């Protein structure tokens, strides 16, 4: 019952199926962890479901796309950070977590933040819009205009399919 691991071309059906498999797998992992029954945990659970959704999107797309790589990197960093926090005691953890946060943030952020190709599409009218788009699509901050549009198209396709999968699941679970 393992999901197919070939890279999906443009076939939306196979993308949907792969997303559905992966998302259900992630959801199952969430469920089989500690059961959160009180209301304070509900928010955290919804956050975990959201992270699971983005994780399954990024996993199915793999390393082919910058946005999926960025999402996977963020999730991995978060996991490592959580493990560090658990292992070390409270006082020392504050110092070390601070160091790790600094190291990781400088790694992620490109020191040469000047974007020479940033305003390639049209500096007169569209600069603000392009910057907004770069902020919305993960990992697209330092791309040129051509790559940005391509990334956006792929991101929208995957995101829309993921939304469809989630909608179907919600309908399914609400009829039980």
């Amino acid at each position, binding site marked *: 019952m393992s999901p197919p691991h070939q890279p999906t071309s443009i076939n939306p059906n196979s993308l949907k199926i792969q997303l559905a498999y992966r998302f259900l797998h992630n959801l199952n992992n969430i469920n089989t962890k500690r059961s959160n029954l009180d209301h304070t945990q509900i928010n955290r659970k919804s956050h975990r479901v959201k992270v699971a959704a983005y994780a399954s999107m990024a996993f199915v797309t793999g390393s082919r796309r910058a946005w999926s790589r960025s999402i996977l990197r963020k999730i991995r960093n978060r996991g490592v950070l959580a493990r560090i926090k658990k292992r070390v005691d409270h006082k020392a953890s504050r110092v070390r977590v601070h160091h790790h946060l600094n190291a990781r943030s400088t790694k992620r952020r490109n020191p040469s933040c000047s974007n020479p190709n940033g305003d390639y*599409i049209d500096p007169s009218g*569209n600069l603000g819009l392009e910057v907004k788009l770069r902020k919305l699509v993960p990992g697209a901050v330092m791309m040129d205009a051509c790559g940005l549009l391509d990334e956006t198209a792929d991101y929208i396709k995957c995101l829309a399919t993921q939304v469809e999968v989630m909608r179907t699941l919600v309908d399914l679970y609400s009829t039980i």
Partner: protein
Amino acid sequence: MSSRRSRQSSNGASRITDDQIIQLLSKLQQLVPEIRNRRSNKASASKVLQETCNYVRSLHREVDDLSDRLSHLLSTIDAESPEASIIQSLIM
């Protein structure tokens, strides 16, 4: 619009043509449902970008909303019920 050509000649590193950008914009236009129904030659670049931003934002909001509902549903359905186990076995 006339400044595109001068920028292209000055930026020799990335040889992106106007046609490529137009092509990508039209591809993006096909994906965004808001502007898909209109005739393609009427949508300007700024319109496409604006609608794309709005669409991505609305998709993000929808993911948040759906994950919220899903988490509520997951916590309320009885995990031991036979229907749930049947559905789980069918899907997985």
